């Protein structure tokens, strides 16, 4: 392995990690606050992607630059509407119920959304690459990269990370979310309405998933089933990091992204195995994930 390969694989790994981070951080956030593993998270990713492509195809003839606000609009729209409906009218009914039931209800939502997606957008691949084509290519060591993937995606991911950190640590809304994460009963006791916090958190997480999908849409064909793979992948990242760990998700996403890229450069056959192997190894050594903390039950 020479330096060229290291540099190229690192670039590929980072751009991949950026997308995976955006999706998994939403999953992680929702789990941290609500203790629900949202299997439908991958569907939100898919809907974000499809919505962005739909808007993109509609506005591109006017001006391709409009597709950028289109991406954002798709993410916020899908996250707010779909996320809001799901939390308010479904998840709220199962709080306090068996963990298995909560997980399974999101599994049911996943099945429905997956099916509905085919009904809405059909089965033919959809491609809306305007945002990608607008930005110039850059050349690294003689290899052409799109600046969309090498600069924009990691940039958005970094901004999201910084923004989330700031929101959680330095704003009242964030402080309330953190309080509920750490001790729901105590938070309720001091007058925080957990339902409102749950709704906000779920919408925020859903927006992040949809944003991941929207940002991915210019680079890939949209097809039935794009969400299915994303669920386990973001799950692997979130679990490796420790559920609820924001910064951890970024590091785990980088680990998995880089390992995958290096696998393709050296032993491409192991590419698919990489995220899951990392997840197994990490969980075996640290069951709470790389950055998660354990709690002892009081007796």
């Amino acid at each position, binding site marked *: 392995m020479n330096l060229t390969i290291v540099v190229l694989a690192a670039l590929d790994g980072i751009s991949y990690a950026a997308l995976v981070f955006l999706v998994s951080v939403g999953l992680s956030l929702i*789990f941290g606050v609500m*203790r629900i*593993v949202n*299997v439908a998270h991958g569907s939100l990713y898919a809907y974000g992607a499809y919505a962005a492509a739909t808007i993109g195809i509609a506005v591109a003839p006017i001006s391709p630059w409009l597709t950028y606000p289109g991406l954002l609009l798709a993410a916020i729209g899908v996250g707010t509407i779909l996320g809001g409906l799901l939390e308010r009218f*479904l998840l709220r*009914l*199962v709080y306090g*119920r*068996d*963990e*298995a*039931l909560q*997980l*399974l*209800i999101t*599994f*049911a*939502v*996943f*099945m*429905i959304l*997956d*099916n*509905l997606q*085919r*009904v809405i957008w059909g089965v033919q691949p959809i491609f809306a690459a305007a945002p990608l084509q607008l930005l110039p290519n850059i050349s690294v060591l003689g290899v052409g990269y799109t600046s969309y993937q090498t600069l924009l995606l990691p940039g958005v991911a970094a901004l999201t990370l910084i923004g989330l950190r700031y929101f959680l640590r330095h704003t009242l809304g964030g402080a309330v979310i953190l309080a509920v994460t750490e001790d729901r009963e105590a938070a309720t006791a001091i007058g925080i309405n957990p339902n409102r916090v749950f709704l906000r958190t779920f919408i925020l997480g859903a927006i992040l998933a949809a944003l991941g999908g929207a940002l991915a849409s210019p680079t890939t064909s949209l097809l039935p089933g794009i969400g*299915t793979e994303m*669920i*386990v992948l973001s*799950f*692997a990242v979130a*679990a490796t990091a420790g*559920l609820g760990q924001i910064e951890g998700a970024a590091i785990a996403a980088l680990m998995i992204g880089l390992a995958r890229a290096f696998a393709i450069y050296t032993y491409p*056959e*192991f590419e*698919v*195995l990489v995220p*899951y*192997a990392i*997840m*197994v190894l990490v*969980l*075996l050594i640290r*069951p*709470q994930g790389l950055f998660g903390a354990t709690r002892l*039950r009081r*007796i």
Partner: protein
Amino acid sequence: MWRRHRVLIGATLVGLAAIGVLPMASPSIVTLLALILAKGVVVLGIIVLLQAGQVSFGHAMFFAAGAYAVAFYGRYVGVGDMLLYLVFGAVAGGVLGLIVGLFVVRYREIFFGMLNLAFSMVLWSLLEKMFHYTNGADGIRVARPALVGLTFTPDQFSYVLLYLSFAIAVAALFAVQRYLESPLGSMLRAIKSNETRLEYLGISARRVLLVGYVTSAVLAGLGGSLVAVIQQIATPEFAYWTKSGEFVFIAILGGTGHALGAFAGAAVFEFVRFYASAQLADAWQMILGFVLIAIILLAPAGLIGIVRRRSAGERSAA
């Protein structure tokens, strides 16, 4: 014996009637019924783990282990005997269950579920990637085996499989019920309500769970080998996470309070999927999703819970 097991014996008789009568209405249902019974055996394993409050989102790995044990035998050794296949499937599930179990029984709840998922995804990607041994995503065909040396025409064999699946399902049902009522089974349920106390009674919760885990893996392996023969194929899809989700789905649908829930759930699930995909080719997933939501919201104890509530109501009315 009769009194304690009257529910199971009653269910067995209903089952017997079903597999006797339904095929007369529609011959293709023979295979569907066998499939339901085989899947019910797998779901029994999920129900065992649910007694301890643990949800495995990776149980498809043992299901696939059973199926591939059969497929590999057929591919590298030659067509074997059905009984041998079943033993192989159960052993493959059990051995893998023991290996994975030694790791995962240290974890609980979401971590337990996640680790199971991770292991199953590793197996899935290996099955996909080891193309030269596993034939990749297309899977390995399983030729029709003999049963204790007897060979059958395809038509006869579908009936043989149905009766065999039924026998295995009944045996598994009684064995699991027996296990759940035994001290070890009671301790398994105690893990769910208070593991700390269990340890303070001098009982290793991990070992109790390991026994349950291996039991459920054996059931999954057994079911997997049956399905491989019924379907005549083993594919990596057998190990994918959506398969695991399907098993948990069936368990919740049927109800986890009784071993019978596994079969009730499997029957409803497969019939809905079968008829929905036949009548409304592109809506079966959605229909199943709505059925599941309805069950969770309206009848959290599953189909078995509905039946129980009914019969309890009748009894108190009488």
